[in-house]
């Protein structure tokens, strides 16, 4: 028990026999947790004369900050963009299941949809928030019920027709030049929105970018045919993310690099980092392209799953909404064809594949799934690291980066 000089009576847990990711290095050190936050043991020792109530042996494993997935469309048969009556149940199911992949926070992603989907989800979302799909106080924190929701990622409908990918054409929208008013007409509200993906070549988008940034919403460029200078203008107005680099944008060309050129652009404002999402499942991006991006701009790489409804389902044929999907290994095809219908890789698979394909250090691979997304969303003072005072969301891994256990607020929420 902490001694009489303690500032708190809450129990202290000490995770021993582990290597923790701190200051960009894996160091042999213990991790201390109290009241859901990472505790500074030196202050505890000298200022409070306290010590641990409970020691947890981590079996020489790696403790890394919990993974943060900023682009996930659903999974386990659930599609966040479908107006199902149990949307809250669906989100909760996915939130719970992704704990197995080491994900402790995520941004449920809604693809281009008719307005009534957004409003319904918005309204349901508000109810969601107050009725607690995730049994924690704020919408941000997760717990034993599942990973925390950081906010919604709205991918579309303000995107390019030519690069819409799988998004339904009839629900694409243009901007009438009224700035956020246009968005509010479609989305209904911007509460609980973390990220908006849009195409910067759409007239009127720059003003929207500026206003979204003012509201603290991360703006991402994607599903676009913008050239580099259009993309740079969007960045100067506040865009900071690129949605699944290489996919749904013009390919890199040496005389017009397009959005991909942002990775090495000299027009990016000082002290601003451009982050870019990478689906590192070995399918959506050729490993050589992954390496080019990583080597050009390692600090900006953010691993995302962009997982679809079929993620987590067993191999074979499934009917999801209007589509029949065939799952073979890591591929999900439109049934009877060889057309990819989306990504079904899990976040831990992406981390492993990224590390193997790029040959980067374990630390860099882990940071691409934790620190970088936290920095992107401006929450790295709370999440994405194991620094003192941050939320104790972390994952226990073995040396092959397989998840052994997942912790939120210091409590074990999943174990292999």
């Amino acid at each position: 028990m902490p001694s009489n000089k303690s500032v708190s009576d809450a129990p202290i847990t000490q995770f021993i026999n582990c290597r923790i990711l701190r200051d960009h290095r894996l160091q042999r050190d213990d991790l201390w947790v109290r009241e859901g936050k990472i505790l500074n043991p030196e202050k505890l020792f000298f200022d409070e004369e306290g010590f641990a109530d409970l020691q947890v042996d981590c079996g020489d494993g790696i403790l890394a900050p919990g993974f943060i997935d900023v682009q996930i469309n659903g999974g386990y048969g659930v599609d966040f963009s479908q107006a199902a009556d149990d949307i809250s149940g669906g989100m909760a199911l996915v939130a719970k299941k992704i704990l197995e992949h080491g994900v402790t926070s995520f941004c449920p992603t809604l693809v281009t949809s008719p307005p009534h989907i957004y409003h319904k989800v918005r309204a349901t979302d508000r109810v969601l928030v107050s009725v607690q799909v995730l049994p924690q106080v704020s919408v941000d924190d997760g717990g034993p019920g599942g990973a925390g929701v950081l906010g919604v990622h709205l991918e579309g409908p303000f995107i390019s027709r030519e690069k819409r990918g799988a998004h339904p054409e009839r629900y694409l929208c243009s901007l009438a030049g009224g700035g956020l008013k246009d968005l509010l007409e479609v989305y209904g509200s911007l509460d609980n929105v973390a990220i908006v993906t849009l195409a910067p070549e759409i007239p009127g988008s720059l003003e929207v970018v500026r206003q979204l940034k003012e509201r603290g919403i991360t703006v991402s460029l994607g599903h676009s045919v913008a050239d580099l200078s259009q993309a740079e203008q969007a960045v100067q107005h506040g865009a900071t993310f690129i949605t699944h680099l290489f996919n749904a944008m013009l390919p890199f060309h040496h005389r017009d690099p397009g959005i991909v050129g942002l990775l090495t652009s000299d027009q990016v404002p000082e002290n601003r980092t451009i982050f870019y999402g990478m689906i590192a499942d070995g399918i959506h991006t050729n490993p050589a392209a992954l390496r080019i991006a990583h080597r050009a701009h390692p600090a900006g790489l953010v691993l995302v799953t962009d997982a679809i409804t079929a993620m987590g389902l067993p191999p074979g044929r499934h009917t999801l909404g209007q589509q029949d999907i065939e799952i073979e290994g890591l591929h999900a095809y439109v049934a009877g064809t060889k057309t990819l219908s989306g990504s079904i890789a899990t976040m831990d698979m992406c981390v492993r594949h990224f590390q193997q394909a790029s040959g980067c250090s374990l630390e860099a691979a882990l940071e691409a799934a934790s620190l970088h997304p936290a920095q992107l969303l401006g929450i790295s003072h709370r999440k994405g690291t194991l620094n003192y005072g941050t939320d104790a969301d972390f994952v226990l891994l073995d040396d092959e980066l397989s998840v052994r256990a997942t912790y939120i607020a210091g409590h074990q929420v999943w174990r292999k």
Partner: protein
Amino acid sequence: MKLIILDDYDKASEWAAKYIRNRILHFNPGPGRFFTLGLPTGGTPLGCYKKLIEYFKKGELSFKYVKTFNMDEYCVFHELVKAEISHLDMNTKDYHSFMWNNFFKHIDIRAENAHILDGNAVDLQAECDAFEEKIKAVGGIELFVGGIGPDGHIAFNEPGSSLASRTRVKTLALDTILANARFFDGDLSKVPTMALTVGVATVMDAKEVMILITGAHKAFALYKAIEEGVNHMWTVSAFQQHPQTLFVCDEDATLELRVKTVKYFKGMMQVHNKLVEPLSPMQEKQRITVEMSEKPYSD
């Protein structure tokens, strides 16, 4: 004194750690019966601390009933804006951090038994007086482990410090500040110029003193400390007048000594090594009589 000469730094660190281990085990500390240990900081004792941690992890040694008293601490925050040095590696700018990272966090010592002077105290001299009282309250120090500076100082008792001094605030010598600059971004203006330190007499009060000296850069100081007279310009020389002193050093530290001195003490190693022979495991020590009380010779 006993002068213990080992081949290299690692062997010297190991000998010193074994000695400390044996002293604690032989003392047989328990509830209400604490072993009191004085401790140094700096580069020299790191190897010794590593070994002690090893013995703890093997289950050969426990610090549960050991009280420690560190020799010194910087007064940093009275003089500098905290922000200016906040980015520096905590290990080097603060002896609390040094002790935590290099020793305390790896062993089973309780925080209330680890005493380090508080360089942040509002009334520095009162802090020093209180430290002296704490030492008195626990009945004095059994074994005080220390190092030596290149200028022969013990703790921060720089050349010219009174050999009768007690725990007090000291202004640091220019040599020391220059030597420490490397830990403060090489910026002299950021290096602390004051420190709290135990006095020479404070250490002399201990029942036994062990000084660790390794490296050729300390050789001249060792020569001055043991082959010349007692002199307040080389404050470690004061321990020539202590009845139980050990100097543990490596070959390089003996480079300025007379060949005769080195040969004499090397010849005693067979006898001295008996002091670090393994004692039986803690659990069985009640059944074994230890022969350390029979000194093979007297100083």
